[in-house]
């Protein structure tokens, strides 16, 4: 039992000592870039098991929940302490995959809006790696319009019955609990009829379907909720006031690995590792070709700028010089940057970008990355939404006219019943 918060330096030293002594070493590249998409279900389950163990190790060593209040099993320390921990993890294994969305936004929302009981039940379990969470937020028909949720929750005494469908959940099939945004009132404008619930994922009423992406990845899922019963004690925030929660939810979501609740080795780049741009040029035999050099330089430039921009805006928000909305700025830049850098990698691969053999090494599969290029401009809120936020909330330009703002949600135009199939058809 320490008395009074430990200073950052000594915390940092303890963290480094512990990491060196107890953490298995790991090749940083293990965590780099988009997570590998070519794992079998078994391999993936094994990885998740391993990460739960790692999280447990962190908890038992007293390095879990650095910024989480002590009454919920955390350390009650500061973001600087978290940064110190992140700095100590270079070269060691850590539970990288289960950080997002479990610790941010889910844990963040629990801490901000959860009842005392909810927090005492779930926060320690999360810190021990026993509960992995994900977010039931986006819907198939919803696109960028998160507040247009159609999943309904109908009250029946002290419980609620949920029906609907959610999509774009990462690893729902191996997660335990979830945060869910549902519509509880159809007779008021859309932002005023939402409520947030928490529910266990593995129960009869929830069918989880894994979505295959065009590159073969199956990281995303779609859930179908049928008469799912949720006790009112598992409601987060007030009835019909869910959007208040939703706004913070999306703020924490945008923070991603910048969140003070997330443990992530600062040595690990969460973007496509820059060094590999020159590796691509080398493999393509174009290291001396100025136009290849310019592509390598441009890609590296964009990654560096993206990092510095994230820092600047993060500090500005922290210092309250900027509003939370400013998080849309690095989000936009990272999105367009990731699309461009994947294109550059594809460009450097040349013909090998179109067809390759395993022997082509780093040049192989750059074409598949290119096919998925827009991921970074779509996931976690599209770049279009970010541009709306920046122009309207930050620059104060007139809001787009939306036909759903002042009308009861049930009267909002939803387009042709025959929703487009996206089939080439005949």
């Amino acid at each position, binding site marked *: 039992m320490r008395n009074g918060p430990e200073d950052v330096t000594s915390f940092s030293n303890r963290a480094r000592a512990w990491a060196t002594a107890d953490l298995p070493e790991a090749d940083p590249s293990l965590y780099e870039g988009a997570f590998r998409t070519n794992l079998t279900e078994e391999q993936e389950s094994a990885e998740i098991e391993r990460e739960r163990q790692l999280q447990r190790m962190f908890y038992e060593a007293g390095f879990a929940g650095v910024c989480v209040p002590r009454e919920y099993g955390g350390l009650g320390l500061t973001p600087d302490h978290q940064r110190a921990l992140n700095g100590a993890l270079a070269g060691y294994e850590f539970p990288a995959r289960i950080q997002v969305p479990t610790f941010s936004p889910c844990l963040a929302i629990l801490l901000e809006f959860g009842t005392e009981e909810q927090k005492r039940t779930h926060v320690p379990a999360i810190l021990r790696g026993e509960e992995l969470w994900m977010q039931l937020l986006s819907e198939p028909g919803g696109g960028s319009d998160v507040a247009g949720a159609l999943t309904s929750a109908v009250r029946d005494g002290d419980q609620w019955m949920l029906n609907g469908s959610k999509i774009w959940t990462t690893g729902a099939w191996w997660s335990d609990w979830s945060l869910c945004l549902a519509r509880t009132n159809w007779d008021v404008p859309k932002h005023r009829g939402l409520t947030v619930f928490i529910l266990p994922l593995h129960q009869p009423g929830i069918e989880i379907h894994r979505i295959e992406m065009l590159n073969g990845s199956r990281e995303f899922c779609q859930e179908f909720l049928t008469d799912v019963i949720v006790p009112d004690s598992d409601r987060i925030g007030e009835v019909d006031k869910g959007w208040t929660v939703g706004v913070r939810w999306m703020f924490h979501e945008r923070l991603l690995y910048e969140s003070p609740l997330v443990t992530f080795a600062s040595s690990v780049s969460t973007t496509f590792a820059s060094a590999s741009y020159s590796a691509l040029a080398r493999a393509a035999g174009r290291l001396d070709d100025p136009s290849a050099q310019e592509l390598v330089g441009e890609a590296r430039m964009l990654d560096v700028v993206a990092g510095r921009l994230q820092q600047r805006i993060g500090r500005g928000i922290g210092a309250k010089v900027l509003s939370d909305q400013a998080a849309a700025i690095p989000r936009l830049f990272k999105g367009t940057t990731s699309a461009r850098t994947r294109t550059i990698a594809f460009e450097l691969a040349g013909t090998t*970008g179109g067809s390759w053999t395993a022997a082509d090494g780093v040049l192989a599969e750059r074409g598949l990355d290119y096919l998925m290029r827009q991921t970074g401009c779509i996931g976690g809120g599209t770049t279009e939404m970010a541009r709306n936020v920046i122009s309207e909330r930050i620059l104060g330009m007139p809001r787009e006219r939306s036909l759903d703002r002042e009308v009861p949600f049930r009267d909002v135009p939803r387009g042709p019943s025959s929703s487009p199939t996206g089939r080439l058809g005949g």
Partner: protein
Amino acid sequence: MQFELTEDQRSLRETTARYLSNTVPVDQLRKLREHPAGYEEEYWRQGAELGWTSLLVPEERGGGSLSGGGLGDATLLAHEFGRHAAPGPFVPCNIAAAALGAEDPVGHGQPLCDLLAGSAVISWCFSEASPQGHRPEGLSLDVSVDGAEVVLDGVKRPVESAAQAGHLLVSGRTGGGLTQVLVPTDAPGVTLEPMQSVDLTRRFWVVRLANVRLPLDAVVGELGGAGAQVEHQLRLALVLLAAESVGAMERAFDMTVEWAFDRYSFGRPLASYQELKHRFADMKTWLEAGHAVTDSAAAAVDAGATDAAELVSVAAAFVGEYGGEMLQDCVQIHGGIGLTYEHDLHLLLRRVTLNRAILGTPSLHRRRIAELLVEQEER
């Protein structure tokens, strides 16, 4: 595709369009992902009956174009292949047919017959892995004569449908000149290694030729004198690829416009958002430009015009670059659904991406354009 087609051209296009819609609908394309060849032989044979392999072959050799402009006609088919992301070795077979059909004195009648009938596939072994390996002058595969035999040594990649081909039309170097040889795929010394591809149905192989020995009559055309013919074949191939990509662009554009009208966000159709409207305006402009430059290139090649070489590289560079950006913007406008395997958009994105990467990236064609500009100036 030109605005005005002759009656014959229209029917050629429509017959193929109908045939593709019926025989290779999207579900079929998804099934073909697991198919070793990427297409059914019967599908190809019937397609050949619709004229898929005959347009670049003179009438007296069993082929025949509709408008006299064989390539112009062939781009109509390529366009439909693009619109349907259709399978099958369309480009290599047409190049092989053009090569054998142009042979003078006449030779290799039987392989050409089988090709025209669709009963056999001949693929073209042109590209090599070296940075210059997409230009005739950059070819290094060695073709030499040893007594009564012609000997081939070298590696070609990527070669489309090599494992389905009975023969390979190999373009290689003989000293200062180029030679083309018709090599039976099962000839001793020929080995194939399968490649992966961004496309769902187009298959490629690495073809290795190690001391492959054939009788001299395996040579197509003149030993060491095939340079002009190879350059011509390359132009044909590039125009067909561009036309196919424009077809895919057109279909993706149509799908995305439809989506923008049907999909509502914040109570309004996507098509009512000015920022999206302006992106659609750009895409429409690129699409029309793609049609314009591809048709111009086809006409120039058909006419043997002096600016044919430039127009071909302009078409390849423009369609490759803007086609890719356009398809990606279609994905962006569709959102997450556009990145899923169940959605059809990626079938088109794959085709445009593939065509952008083979036979020289836009970057190489931009350099080629500059090269031609300098030559022109120095003339």
